[in-house]
């Protein structure tokens, strides 16, 4: 299949992934637009025969992380580093169980970016752990531990924990 056709075919899923990362619908489409522009510009770097979807997800995710880091430098939000992630993740435990029942957006917003992207890739986009690890360029063990933490927080906030 031709590059452009395959790319167009991916857009509905890519928009869904972006919506999970960015939450706001128009921010998500801006993210998709930036990802498409990047992909078209660097299409030579995509090796034919490898999966275009993984490549597009990686571009989208990297642009999002760049955007978040740039925003952090402008002082809009806290920088992404492991210490902050831990606090953000643990902070949700102090929220009453089931406090965000039915509010998926609100619950997802409690997750650090690095957990949210794993939750989106595995639980929503349906990627295998190994595929998610390739997209994110991290070891499988990192995927499973982030997924476990993210899942726990979501179950807690959405009231699906024991």
């Amino acid at each position: 299949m031709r590059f452009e056709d395959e790319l167009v075919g991916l857009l509905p899923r890519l928009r869904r992934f972006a919506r999970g990362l960015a939450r706001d619908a128009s921010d998500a489409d801006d993210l998709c637009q930036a990802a498409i522009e990047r992909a078209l510009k660097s299409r030579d770097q995509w090796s034919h025969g490898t999966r275009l979807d993984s490549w597009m997800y990686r571009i989208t995710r990297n642009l999002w992380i760049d955007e978040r880091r740039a925003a952090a430098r402008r002082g809009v939000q806290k920088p992404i580093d492991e210490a902050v992630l831990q606090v953000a993740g643990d902070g949700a435990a102090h929220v009453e169980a089931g406090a965000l029942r039915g509010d998926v957006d609100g619950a997802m917003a409690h997750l650090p970016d690095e957990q949210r992207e794993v939750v989106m890739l595995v639980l929503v986009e349906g990627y295998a752990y190994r595929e998610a690890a390739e997209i994110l360029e991290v070891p499988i063990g990192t995927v499973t531990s982030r997924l476990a933490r993210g899942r726990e927080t979501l179950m807690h906030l959405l009231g699906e924990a024991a």
Partner: protein
Amino acid sequence: MTIDRATIAAYVDGELDDIAARRIERAAEADPEIADAIARHRALTATLAAHYGPVAEEAVPNRLLDLVAGADRVDTSLAARREAKRARFGAMQWGAIAASLALGLTIGLRPWLPTEPVAVQGGALVAAGPLSEALDTQLASNQPADAPVRIGLSFRDRTGRYCRSFESAAVDGIGCRADGRWRLERTTPGAAATDYRQAASGSLAAAAADMMAGDALDAGAERAARDGGWRR
């Protein structure tokens, strides 16, 4: 529980091989706690799928599709669109524009006569007099059958401007609201040039479809846009 959460998660995520999966299923039959944990994991996945699933069902915005299409010089659908565009702006349309321009230039010289429908302002062809008034105020949903200007579709183009297609005796076309006036983006001869009537109305509809972002305004949205002065 003899099976850890990670294994249950891996089971629900379809990461276990058949033998390991079978082992979990047997354990779940014997231990309601394991069965519960599996159910909770599945419930979360289902909740997320129900929440995000509809996003992938939405129509992809034109600005994203155009980005991909615009990058591809040999795309057949794009070639087809260009062909359609050329056809729409064929000799007949250029003729109509020339005629309108001539008319507009005449009006331009006689600004005290506001009864002509088109004018040239700042180098752009714009609606004037009765046409401008109709585009400003008339609603397609309740226009008199014998209105001198008939409004067709109202819609927003990809830059967010309000545009309206219209038909009248002298000229048919599409006007888009910019800088407080209706810029005529498309014009064809009106009802007076009866020979071309059929073709003109079809090509206007095609032009409108090509210009619009999303759907045409319904009666309520048309009224709201008018009441808002057609500001973006």
